[in-house]
């Protein structure tokens, strides 16, 4: 189910403002890649170009190529709706649909993609909730609103919702930044399990988290406020945190910067 991402020469704008410039990288299937860097360096913007969510913001546009197993997401005739069905996303703040029950939240993506029989749907919802380590906590109240869960549970519900449609890639935009340490740990464990099935890209401000969960780490930085963010380096996580090849990376991860 997992696919490989090849980004080449990607530049993203907000109106005339260049947010990220000329980014190229490769993300291997069935691996976790972490994006780290100071605020405003464009890691979230870059993440959002990987499922064409960037262009949802008014005046957002993108130049360059993002290949998913060789297919350009920005090629002519590619429907962004189909891209987002293949590349799932989990957001910074848990955002289950407040008007839907827990069950309906998980089934939401499936119902968009086609019609399922009742028991088929039950099976997928159960499998997804189990996949998100949430099943035991909610199996008795699937018909209760998702907004009644705790923050950490809501975030796992959002992950269940995202993986229910079996995406090729799962993007996570600071998925733990609104959560307490215990919920964070639960999500991190979950990421470790999910990478068996999906290609995962995670943006995080927490460097320990990046070190804990990721196989490869990309460091983004910007020259000054108002300048576009750039990819400084991407390498094995171990190497980035022990012996990075660029001085700026070392400064950042050792706290001598920003």
């Amino acid at each position, binding site marked *: 189910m997992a696919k490989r991402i090849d980004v080449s020469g990607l530049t993203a704008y907000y109106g005339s403002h260049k947010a990220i410039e000329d980014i190229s990288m490769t993300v291997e299937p069935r691996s976790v890649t972490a994006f780290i860097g100071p605020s405003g360096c464009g890691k979230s913007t870059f993440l959002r170009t990987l499922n064409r969510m960037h262009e949802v913001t008014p005046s957002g546009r993108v130049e360059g190529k993002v290949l998913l197993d060789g297919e350009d997401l920005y090629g002519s005739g590619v429907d962004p709706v189909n891209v987002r069905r293949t590349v799932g996303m989990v957001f910074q*703040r848990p955002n289950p649909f407040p008007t839907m029950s827990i069950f309906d939240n998980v089934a939401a993506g499936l119902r968009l993609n086609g019609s399922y029989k009742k028991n088929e749907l039950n099976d997928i919802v159960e499998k997804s909730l189990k996949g998100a380590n949430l099943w035991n906590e909610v199996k008795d109240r699937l018909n209760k609103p998702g907004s009644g869960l705790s923050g950490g549970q809501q975030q796992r519900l959002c992950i269940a919702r995202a993986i229910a449609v079996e995406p090729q890639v799962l993007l996570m935009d600071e998925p733990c930044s609104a959560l307490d340490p215990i919920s964070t740990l639960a999500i991190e464990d979950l990421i470790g399990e999910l990478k068996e099935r999906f290609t995962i890209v995670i943006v995080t401000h927490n460097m320990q988290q990046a070190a804990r969960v990721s196989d490869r780490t990309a460091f983004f930085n910007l020259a000054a406020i108002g300048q576009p963010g750039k990819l400084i380096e991407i390498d094995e996580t171990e190497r980035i945190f022990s012996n990075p090849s660029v001085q700026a990376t070392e400064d950042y991860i050792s706290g001598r910067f920003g």
Partner: protein
Amino acid sequence: MDISTTKAPPPTEPADARPPADDRRKSNSATRPGDRVFLGLSRGSGIVLLTIMGAIAAFLTYRTVLALSDNSGNFFTTFEWDTAATPPKFGIPVLVFGTVVSSIIALVIAVPIAVAIALFISHYAPRKLSGPIAYVIDLLAAVPSIVYGLWGALVVAPHLVGLYSWLDDYLGWTGIFEYSGGAPRSLMTVGILLAIMILPIITNVSREVFLQSPKMHEEAALALGATRWEVIRMSVLPFGRSGVISASMLGLGRALGETIAVATVLSPSFLINASLLDPGGGTFAQNIASKFNEADEFGRDALIASGLVLFVITLLVNGAARLIIARRKEYSGANA
């Protein structure tokens, strides 16, 4: 209207709990002149409002009792309005029917259109276009109702003959859509006109609610691969549901009470006509407006009695709307 918040602190605090607090409240350290002036102003306004409401209710009830005590017919079942006769005989079923039916027609027509316009402005139209459209909708609300009435009677009604004949051809068998020709100054025409009149308020309130629908839920839907319409269905409409209901109730309130436009368009008669397309019927407000000038003292009391019923109907409608909204509270966006 809740004025309890403007009242002084509750005096029922247990005496032994925190006596120092009571002392402090009595001392001069807690209040400033500005606070006192504002407290007085807001409390005064609350009292004035309640007094006015009370006075209106007392007036309506008193005159209603006067009128009803001399009514030889049954107020709730008599299909006549003859207040000059001896003994006088009048009742409201015709007015209830006309008022409710014309308002329902207005809602049925206006709500879908208003929601569609509101969605177009909030989620489809480019920004350059949405501003002017919203402005034009606002202008619709600024047109005086007598202008609507004249336009309805002179322009809209004649154009409806074709539509009504068509309805009669295909749906005449239902009885509701029978049309026997002539000037279509009927409850249906009134309903159509009322729909246009309440369109702006429903559109505007709905638009405001739709614009406030949380971005993060829209993005959640988008990230699942929802199309624009699916985003609206999954995150905007559920969030805006109670707002649309409130907006509709505001519109319904206006439709129920609309007077001069109805009086201008409708060719009234004091009977319940099964066909909505044929002239006839009446509404509370229209009945009061057209009879008030010629009525004697007693006739006016009778009209006031009918006004009280309209007041009660409006209250009931509002209460029902609140119930609908409250029932879905658990799933509303408020606790997200």
